């Protein structure tokens, strides 16, 4: 039961990441390979703001000069809102130069964002305590079941917001931009501005997910926010069905729930790194095979047909 609850919470948090990526890549064609970076921004913001002063008195920090963490002790709600806002703001700052790039170059630039954030988390001891990480992050309600319900609530809100956005006139500009930039621009829509909104909203939701993760795991360290996280999100979004939010949820359940977490208690062999590496190899091969033979994913995008459109009118 405890095990199922753990998996369910992790899957729900990953679902938020997947929905955000689907908004960016599926609907707007912005390949974000820096998911781990924005996830880290959210996790660290929330952790630094909410960690209690007690944390600084832990043994391993004896003689640590001390910095920001442990001095603010804000409530959870402040942490999660600040995490969302800061991730969005950083996305905006980075977006100004980077969103001018062609899509495939944008991908590499976003990997760089994640790397830079990783190095900052590792080296700015006054802010993040470095590689030891932050511990004793409070979990709201101090109850796993209630916390899981809270994560589900946030997931539902994100799902609703993204679905509404994509169906709004604003979301139609996103999809039009995805299909043909020139046509959209010639209709007087600002391609850059619409992309910027998708970029900022998506990254802000990744920050929200990071905050939820920090309060769930109760301890974070820079080593968690590596490209592997990004890769897992990409694979389940593509397997589940790019451009279809329900497909993303199913993909997360399949890849993260069944494969990544569900195989955790199978008998391990070899050195401790062998099984996780094998798992990633299998996922990587699966990604290649999926793109080769079923690029639309398990559940493809529901295209708007003329009949449907007439019906809605």
């Amino acid at each position, binding site marked *: 039961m405890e095990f199922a609850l753990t998996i369910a919470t992790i899957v729900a948090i990953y679902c938020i990441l997947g929905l955000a990526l689907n908004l960016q890549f599926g609907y707007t*064609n912005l390949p974000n390979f820096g998911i781990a970076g924005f996830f880290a921004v959210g996790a660290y913001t929330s952790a630094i703001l909410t960690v209690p002063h007690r944390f600084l008195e832990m043994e391993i920090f004896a003689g640590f000069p001390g910095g920001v963490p442990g001095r603010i002790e804000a409530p959870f709600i402040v942490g999660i809102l600040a995490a969302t806002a800061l991730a969005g703001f950083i996305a905006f700052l980075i977006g100004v130069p980077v969103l001018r790039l062609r899509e495939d170059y944008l991908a590499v630039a976003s990997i760089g964002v994640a790397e830079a954030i990783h190095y900052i988390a590792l080296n700015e001891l006054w802010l993040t305590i470095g590689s030891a990480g932050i511990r004793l992050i409070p979990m709201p309600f101090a109850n796993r079941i209630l916390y899981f319900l809270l994560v589900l609530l946030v997931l539902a809100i994100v799902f609703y917001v993204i679905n509404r956005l994509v169906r709004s006139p604003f979301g139609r500009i996103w999809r039009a931009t995805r299909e043909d930039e020139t046509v959209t621009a010639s209709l007087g829509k600002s391609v850059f501005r619409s992309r910027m909104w998708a970029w900022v909203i998506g990254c802000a939701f990744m920050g929200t997910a990071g905050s939820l993760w920090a309060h769930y795991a109760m301890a974070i360290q820079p080593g968690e926010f590596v490209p592997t996280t990004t890769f897992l999100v990409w694979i389940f979004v593509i397997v589940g069905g790019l451009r279809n939010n329900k497909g993303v949820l199913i993909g997360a359940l399949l890849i993260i729930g069944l494969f990544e977490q569900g195989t955790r208690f199978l008998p391990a062999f070899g050195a401790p790194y062998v099984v996780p590496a094998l798992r990633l190899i299998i996922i990587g091969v699966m990604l290649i095979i999926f793109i080769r033979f079923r690029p639309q994913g398990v559940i493809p995008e529901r295209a708007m047909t003329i009949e449907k459109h007439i019906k809605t009118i």
Partner: protein
Amino acid sequence: MEDLLSYGLLTFASLALPALGLCLSIKVVKYFNLAYGDYVTMGAYIALLFNLIFGWNIVWAMVATIVITAIAGAAIHKGIFKPLMERKVGPLTLLVVSLGVGFVIRNVILIAWGPQPYQYKMPMARAHHFGPFFFTPFQIFMIVVCLAVAIGIFLMLRYTQLGRLMRATSDNPELSEIRGINIEKVYSYTWLIACGLSALGGVFMSILGTITTWMGIGVLVTIFACLIVGGIENPYGAVLGALIISFAMEATAIWISPPYKVTIAYVIMIVILLIKPSGIFAGGGFKWSSLLRLQR
């Protein structure tokens, strides 16, 4: 200052060739391979196999590595990317596939070698002063090889038949195909060259530092910054960009903090994108208005 000159040149020797290789692959084959950083790692580990397990001299290990990595890279193109390109999928799909390829390579290496860092077995050598520089003989060899290979590639692009075919394919693949160029062959040769260069760079980097399974991602970001600085599809720009980035990185290591080397490369990239997105060696002057422009 002496340190900066010496280390800067050495870092340049290890960055210039992978940057040139990535540039050629983007220019000719027209898709971005995120696994390129992992090709560099692959080169480093293959040389480690020859050097540490078989006990070869590092130079011979390097030669063998170049051949094997080049063939492996071309085979990955033929086996995975070519079938997708024939189906006319977009560059973004190829990009996502290359992400998967990179993860497979990285984790295969991880299983084979484990997470601990390695170093090559090399005889200790004394460093000597050469004017303002301070090098061991092998480091001189590295710099000479790097410059010779880079110049060789430039001459090849300019004067040989293969270079002409590559430039023609780069300019217009359809037209080249109509004129009877076997562009698949050109692509294969380009990947052979690009992966050979990545292997050479990987060995040089590992001689200067240590070999780890996750070095590829930092390398990818760094050489991408070199390309942006020099203008993405410009081979000369790639090498000059590598020169600028490597000196900036070493200056950071000396005066600010060594862990921020990759970050500074990234910051330079962002600045270049803000002031001159086409690279500092492209035509046309810098315009202050481009700082404020928010339209693409």
